[in-house]
């Protein structure tokens, strides 16, 4: 069971919504589409489902070309951001509806519905109408309806976005469980990098209609192929700094430099873009050879166990995530440190030149 997209693109009215893309999703995998709003996640999912026809390219399901097939003839289930349920039917009928269309027997339907309902903890609500349930329960009903079909391809378009923060956390823990039960191909769209990391599996990062990288989630996170992927896959956003390498030194800021060690050593001289994640910014130097930056502290935000520091470095805005609660003076200069092991080097064109060495070790 595999879904293959070959050179698939979507152009609407002169605007390219999806650039030509090749993608292969294997059986029993959880695939996350990560990208900001309007980056093409929904368009791509609609193409996978068969709700839209691609402008170019073909889509293969289990080796068969299904590009022209109607969505009703494919084994696809889809869950949307807005909890979509048939409002006049009870929860039981809602979950049973795809099976009834498939013409299964009463006993089969009953067994399948109860199993899905138990998995989604909807057992006691089976004879209520969706509008009588809370938001989280409505979405669980939609999820159960998608699962009961036992479709080969399950698409989830930001299903948790309209739920409360804590509810989102809870359902997020349940989704991998139902995924393991189902054994189908799951495709999950989200704007939050943390969700991608929590769901695991494979991630495709999207930016302006292009898939910038596709691979195992931890790999895409730790070894982004370009600055765009790194930017998409970071929350808070990744910090960037222009540097130039001259001989054995790397120059940045106002004539400061550090020795070029590790992955920086073999690089040819020239200008580069250094990227580093906020959680690697430190206010105490932990390692010799750490890069020092003179910044001004603009705003602090306390998280209860961590402190977000918003810094100004020569006009550039940086964010740091520091462990522990710190009472720092606003508007005052603040020295921050960065271990060179945590620095990603990108070429001026954005492509990754040297990954952060800590990522390679992990």
């Amino acid at each position, binding site marked *: 069971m595999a879904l293959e997209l070959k050179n698939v693109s979507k152009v609407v009215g002169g605007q390219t919504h999806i650039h030509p893309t090749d993608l292969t999703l294997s059986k029993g995998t959880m695939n996350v589409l990560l990208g*900001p*709003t309007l980056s093409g996640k929904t368009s791509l999912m609609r193409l996978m489902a068969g709700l839209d026809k691609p402008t170019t390219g073909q889509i293969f399901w289990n080796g068969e070309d299904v590009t022209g097939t109607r969505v009703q003839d494919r084994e696809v289930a889809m869950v949307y951001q807005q909890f979509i349920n048939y409002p006049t039917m009870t929860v039981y009928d809602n979950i049973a509806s795809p099976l009834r269309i498939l013409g299964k027997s009463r006993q089969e339907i009953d067994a399948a519905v109860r199993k899905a309902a138990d998995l989604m903890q909807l057992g006691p609500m089976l004879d209520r109408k969706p509008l009588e349930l*809370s*938001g989280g329960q409505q979405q669980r009903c939609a999820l159960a309806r998608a699962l009961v079909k036992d479709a080969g391809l399950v698409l989830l378009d930001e299903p948790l976005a309209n739920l*409360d*923060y*804590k*509810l989102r*956390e809870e359902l997020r*823990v349940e989704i991998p469980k139902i995924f393991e039960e189902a054994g189908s191909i799951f495709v999950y769209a989200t*704007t*939050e*990098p*943390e969700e991608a*990391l*929590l769901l*695991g599996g494979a991630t495709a990062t999207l930016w302006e209609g292009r898939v910038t990288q596709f691979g195992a*989630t*931890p790999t895409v*996170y730790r070894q982004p192929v370009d600055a765009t992927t790194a930017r998409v896959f970071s*929350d*808070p*956003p990744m910090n960037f700094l222009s540097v130039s390498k001259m001989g054995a030194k790397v120059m940045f800021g106002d004539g400061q430099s550090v020795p070029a060690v590790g992955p920086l050593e073999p690089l040819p001289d020239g200008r580069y873009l250094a990227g580093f*994640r906020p*959680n690697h910014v430190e206010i105490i130097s932990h390692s010799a050879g750490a890069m020092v930056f003179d910044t001004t502290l*603009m*705003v602090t*935000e*306390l*998280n*209860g*166990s961590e402190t*977000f520091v*918003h810094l100004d470095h020569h006009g550039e805005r940086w*964010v740091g*995530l520091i462990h522990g*609660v710190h009472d720092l003076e*606003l508007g005052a200069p603040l020295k921050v440190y960065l271990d060179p092991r945590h620095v990603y080097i990108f070429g001026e064109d954005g492509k990754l030149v040297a990954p952060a060495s800590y990522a390679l070790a992990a």
Partner: protein
Amino acid sequence: MAKITLDNLAHSYLTNPSGEADYALKELNHVWSDGEAYALLGASGCGKSTLLNIISGLLHPSKGRILFDDVDMTEASTADRNIAQVFQFPVVYDTMTVRDNLAFPLKNRGESPQYIAERVQQIGKMIGMEAQLDKRARGLTADAKQKISLGRGMVREDVNALLFDEPLTVIDPHMKWELRTQLKSLHNEFGHTMIYVTHDQTEALTFADKVVVMYDGRVVQIGTPQELFERPEHTFVGYFIGSPGMNVIPAAVEGMTASVHGAEIALREAFEPLRGKVEIGVRPEFVTLTDGNGLPVNVRRVEDVGRHRIVRADLFGNEINIVASEDTHISPEMTRVTFDPTHVNVYVDDWRQAGKAA
């Protein structure tokens, strides 16, 4: 800028409420200091929006009074209370330009055109929309419109309080950062009393000086983000704040030890024998996975969240989460956990029990 006092305030949406269950907002007695930033945090339906609407005057409370600077404002209209409110989705006057939108409240008050122009320029700069002041509000993005809503709220200098009702709901995660920090710097610069309603703990904790945690129409705890994190007064606070929330495990407590299925855990205070539903609470950040001595656990999953890892495990049938930093090495031999005694809290019937210092 005003101090807000809630005096025996309660509200029911039913005309003839009989018991406590009929009240959306149960009796509240609190004073909110002038110039502070507060967050009202809670799940949907906990009463936070009800409270906000009572403060702004859009809802009249069934019982009790509300005072601004010790003046009874319960009967005062919304206009008279001189507050500003930013709603969940951007509310802008589509047919007007950004400039006219910002000027609207001042024009309605009859301020001089010169003052209005000055103020609009100032506010436009503050929300970072100086360049777009003469654009039509209709075609702008959601976050630009929300900034306009915010600006319109701040344009009156003498506003008593700024109220925010889940204002970042429609905003993209990437923009949420910008708007949050902008709100924070605005608070730092101007010192308005700000009340921010949300269900998102990150928003609440990063924005507020003090967080008011609400559950089922009641205020469960008011404290700084750090207090809520380290000393949750109620298991709900422990659960709701922190990602993942606090681990709550049934235990027997006596003296300075708690025992879970015979295994002993050291506490930082001494307790008399406790009766009722006794539990200990410890946050995942203060649980360490080790291969040495400790309580036995079954590790079920290790999730990599990038900047740290979440270990989901099983302790005598209780679900327990552990947060391990990025650099910690996790090996299969690590089948035990230790709890940091300074961060273990004891709860009786969901409320924190204070012990005696040893």
